[in-house]
């Protein structure tokens, strides 16, 4: 919608009001000829708006180092992270529960920032 209105505004303003020119004897605001550019700009705004939103909300930006829970998570394993306090009494129970439900590995990892 933004792209479409921007494109139409741009073309109508530029060729219709700011500097009307007669091209091929057609009216200054000849809408049919404006359709291709309007369409392209609609697509342009849709795609880039969406991709920028995707990278922003997923907090994806180039960084020097990426902390990963387990390097195999980007290869062939699924990783489930469960946050626990340092001295939690829940730990043996949780380990038991995970094992019973078919976890292939249960690890403890101390992480300060993730």
């Amino acid at each position, binding site marked *: 919608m933004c792209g479409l209105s921007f494109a139409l505004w741009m073309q109508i303003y530029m060729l219709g009001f700011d500097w009307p020119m007669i091209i091929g004897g057609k009216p200054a605001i000849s809408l049919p000829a404006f359709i291709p550019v309007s369409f392209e700009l609609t697509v342009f705004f849709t795609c880039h708006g969406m991709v920028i939103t995707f990278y922003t909300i997923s907090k994806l930006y180039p960084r020097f180092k*990426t902390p990963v829970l387990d390097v195999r998570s980007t290869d062939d394993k699924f990783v489930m992270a469960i946050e626990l306090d340092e001295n939690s009494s829940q730990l043996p129970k949780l380990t038991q529960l995970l094992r019973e439900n078919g976890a292939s590995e249960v690890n403890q990892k101390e992480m300060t920032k993730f």
Partner: protein
Amino acid sequence: MQHVSPVREPLVTGGKTYHDVTQDICYQVEAAPNIRWMGALGVSLILLGVFFYSVYRTLWYGIGEWGLNKTVGWAWDITNFVWWVGIGHAGTLISAVLLLFRQKWRSSINRAAEAMTIFAVICAAMFPVLHMGRPWLAFYVFPLQNTLGSLWANFNSPLLWDVFAISTYFTVSLVFWYTGLVPDFATIRDRAKGKIAKFSYSMLSMGWTGSAKHWSRYETVSLILAGVSTPLVLSVHTIVSMDFATSVVPGWHTTIFPPYFVAGAIFSGFAMVLTLMLITRVVFKLEDYITLEHIALMNKIMMVTGSIVGVAYITEFFIAWYSQVEYEQYAFINRATGPYWWAYASMMTCNVITPQLVWFRRVRYSIVLTFILSIIVNIGMWFERFVIIVTSLHRDYLPSSWAMFSPTRIDVGVYVGTIGLFFTLFLLFAKFFPVINMAEVKAILKYTVNDGPTYGGANEGGGRSITHASLAPYATPGVPASAPVNYDKQND
């Protein structure tokens, strides 16, 4: 264990596990470049040198270095432009249209095809920019302020539509391609040993951790991008065809151009994808991922679009006769029998007759024949553009201005040079980026609990043997690779 359908050929052969996929594809990125790759890069770099020399001549001495003249004001440059843009279209078609149609076989070829799109569009963009003569003023094509010296851009002009279409197409393809690459960069990053590799792939992967939220957003973004790219790719070549169709030149002024150009673009694009894939699968040993089945399917698409192009040629001829317009009729007769009859003849042979050979199963499944066919189609499609552009222009309404066109060495140099540019970019891509979308290929491998039916291949009697193999499960002992879920009973 891997589940294999009893009736369909598997999309990935060789009984790959998820880890095998990562291994096979990352190996190319991590290993030292092999000799064949070095050789290919050497040749491409020589051609790239030819490109730079020809561009230098063009810029230093001007467009007079080309074989253009006043009558044939558009020749090789626009021919090459349309040819390259057309080639680019197959990439988007594979990545977007086939995604919407849920053609899962696209997964192992879409990455390379999209890369091809991007590099082809870069090559295409060289021609209009160079033809401007003063490329440093290329920014005048954008709607800039009146006060800067020139007037506003003319939005009635199809050439300006082209500017918008191609730049939108290029940037959208680029982000589509890059977003798809991010999870695979993360895989390489996590495997990387060297400091530089770790650092650069960390930068490239933008902190992708493969979290469930990332994946779910990623899937949505891919789907919407595919949905938007589909009309985009059709519009781009439609607009390219309007460069011709909106003019009054006989032989150009036809309403059939948009669909005919789009079909031609997909046709030539698939031919180029086949050429590239057949080389890539051998150089990088990816026979298990790009199977004969893939080649046959792409051949079928080539056959369909090739037939559409063939019908369009004949329709054009028929309409020229039916229109009773003297000039139109002359343009077509001159095309077929005039001084450029050889170009017309090569176009007809390469584009109409060759794709029909694909009806034979033996041709469709033959690597050598497919490779030859794909090259012939590429040549044919180049001739198509040459025929449309040069034969229509060289004899226009005014016989006193009739002229012939013959290319100069610089013309050839720029064209051959862009092929060098294309292959240099593609080879660098193939070495440093994962050529196959690992994440998506893993998604099409089907894993199941023990004792599923297994595809045994077509045996000699013509029937298909189904074997119930119970191979050792891949996962850790005692753990089902995927837990059996019964969706029907959950709500009871």
